């Protein structure tokens, strides 16, 4: 076998080893690599999700109540819903059925007290007219829960 072929095989083996190592690490860290938890995660993984964490989901339709600077709204992943209270300025994209991420913690009463609210936007880009036409024709995809 020529030396360059030996080197090529060695290189290949090293790459396979590194990538399988990286895969193992990523699988092991899976829970801490997520940026936010969904309301379902909060219910099912109550042991890992505690203290300060980020809650993500869609703003429940018809759930926004504003009292002064305080906004109350529901965050849903279409399975479970958690109610959020936030005192502060909301991002421009905040509205019903918009994906959002709220930072904060659960109060003893089960309401999520947010210290910060970020808006998520989806991967769809289109001009206003197209969005209108799609909604009219009924082909508008309802915003799906954020993965």
């Amino acid at each position, binding site marked *: 076998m020529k030396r*360059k072929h030996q*080197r*090529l095989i060695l*290189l290949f083996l*090293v*790459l396979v080893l*590194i*990538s399988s190592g*990286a895969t193992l690490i*990523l699988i092991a860290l*899976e829970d801490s*690599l*997520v*940026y*936010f*938890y*969904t309301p379902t995660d909060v219910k099912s993984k109550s042991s890992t999700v505690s203290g300060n964490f980020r809650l*993500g989901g869609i703003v429940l339709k018809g759930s926004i109540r504003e009292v002064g600077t305080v906004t109350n709204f529901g965050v849903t992943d279409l399975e479970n819903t958690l109610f959020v209270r936030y005192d502060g300025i*909301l*991002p*421009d*994209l905040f509205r019903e059925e918009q994906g959002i*991420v709220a930072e904060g913690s659960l109060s003893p009463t089960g309401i999520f007290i947010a210290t*910060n*609210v*970020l*808006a*998520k*936007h*989806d*991967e*769809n*880009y*289109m*001009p*206003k*007219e*197209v*969005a*209108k036409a799609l909604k009219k024709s009924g082909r508008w995809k309802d915003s799906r829960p*954020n*993965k």
Partner: protein
Amino acid sequence: MINYFSNPNRFLKLTEKLLPWLVGLTILFFLVGVYFGLLYSPADYQQGETVRIMYVHVPAAWLALSCYAFMAAMGALSLTYKHPLAGIAARSAAPIGAGFTVIVIITGSLWGKPIWGTWWVWDARLSSVLVLFFLYLGHIALSHAFENPLRGIRASAILALVGLVNIPIIKFSVDWWNTLHQPASLTRFDAPAIDPSMLIPLIIMALAFFLYFLTILLVRIKSELTSQKIRAINIKMIK
């Protein structure tokens, strides 16, 4: 093809011929792309005019990733086949890729502030891109850290190959984990989620960025080869 270019002079001759065309095409594509992106294309239904940041952000991101893949491939070539030009190509590509990564991060935070409500978050996509930037910096530093340039090329090639695991992580971070960053719009199984009136300017800008990358890469390789020649002449004269 690989062996053909092991003669740097042959490569230099071809570069001389290609460069004027590349420069012209780059300028042309940038002019057309900027016109389409800033004036012709419509505002987004959700994001309004802010969406135009996409025409710089997304092509820069694509190039930052593909430039890294190119750098790693050239590193592999230089390690296994001791190809003289491959090592120089990897060394020349690193600062260009680092530049693209800086553009991605800056335009990304300019985009994030109005839309998300924050300049920066530590989600999987943003953090892995920051790691990419550090990999580029490490590559640049390592390839210049040795008296003998060949050793620098070898060391940095190993770094580039180890760092290659980060590329799929960046690409798929938005699918594997919850992130604030939205998933990919173009590379998905169903049709792209971008309206054609926005997709066309995006693709023109991507081509412009690619041509720019190619032009700068050739210029850098050329100047690297020339400075090698000068070094060789100097050594001869001293003797």
